[in-house]
């Protein structure tokens, strides 16, 4: 009996080229579509239609209104909180802290306080957002955490030009 080719191992030739092709195509796709998205954050605003008529806030705080006036080019011309002139958003924040305290402060009225933002129609939105930021809270420089001020923010009906 003749035994043939015992022990001889034929190497199976794997075709790597198609796989490498497709892998490189995938790689190029992901590299081309990759972009670093800047983190985005939110400010919650609850505004049911009947809110302004639903009654005054239950606490003793007077209703607060911030009035933002715009210059012709849409920049911020002036700012008033309850008829009091405000020069900067830092001053606005300090005033809000003095009025309502904050979460860590002695007064602790920030939870129930409510404020209405009344801005000119053509005011650039970035100024409104700066006001919302100043009203909502600030970053504690020592801990780096956000200290909340006023959570209930409403918007007045738009002022037509």
């Amino acid at each position, binding site marked *: 009996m003749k035994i043939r080719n015992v022990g001889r191992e034929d190497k199976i030739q794997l075709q*790597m080229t198609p*796989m*490498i092709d497709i*892998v*490189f195509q*995938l*790689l190029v796709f*992901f*590299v081309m*579509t*990759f*972009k670093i*998205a*800047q*983190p*985005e*954050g*939110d*400010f*919650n*605003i*609850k*505004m*049911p*239609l009947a809110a302004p008529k639903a009654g005054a806030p239950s606490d003793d705080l007077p209703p607060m209104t911030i009035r*933002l006036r*715009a210059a012709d080019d*849409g920049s911020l011309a002036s700012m008033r909180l309850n008829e009091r002139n405000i020069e900067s958003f830092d001053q606005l924040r300090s005033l809000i802290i003095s009025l309502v305290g904050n979460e860590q402060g002695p007064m602790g009225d920030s939870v129930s306080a409510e404020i209405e933002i009344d*801005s*000119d*129609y*053509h*005011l*650039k*939105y*970035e*100024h*409104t*957002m*700066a006001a*919302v*930021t100043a009203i*909502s*809270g*600030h*970053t504690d420089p020592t801990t780096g955490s*956000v200290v909340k001020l006023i959570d209930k923010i409403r*918007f*007045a*009906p*738009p*002022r*037509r*030009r």
Partner: protein
Amino acid sequence: MRIPEPKRSDLAEGDLTPMIDMTFQLIAFFMVLINFTDAEQDQRIRLPVSDIAKPPDTAFIEPRTVHLTDRGMVSFRGDEMPMVEFERHLRRDVQELRNRGKSVTDVTVIIRADKNAMSGQVQEIMQECQRTGYERFVLRAKSPDPGG
């Protein structure tokens, strides 16, 4: 005279394993980092910056993203329109929600407005949404650039 044997023409076999390893790792890296939330973003919109705006802790149940460009065009659910047509699209969305047995009060309207858009138009968006029954709103801002 002895004729030398012709040289064997064996192909040089490079070891492809490290390259394939590395390539797969790169693909895995990009796949993990790919941003699937791009669908709700509009690259034309430059959001205002806020240093205390934080990403939401939990995902919204029924989010509706409204984009407002600096030219006053509204983009809602893939359609771009002027402000006067926005209400019609909102009513259609409310009808779709009702057909699905959902309540409009469960919806959170995410407003992504350009920093140079007019504040009055943002207020108009909120007003139109209020008229059609939406109550929850979210103003979106971007965190400051860490590089300054």
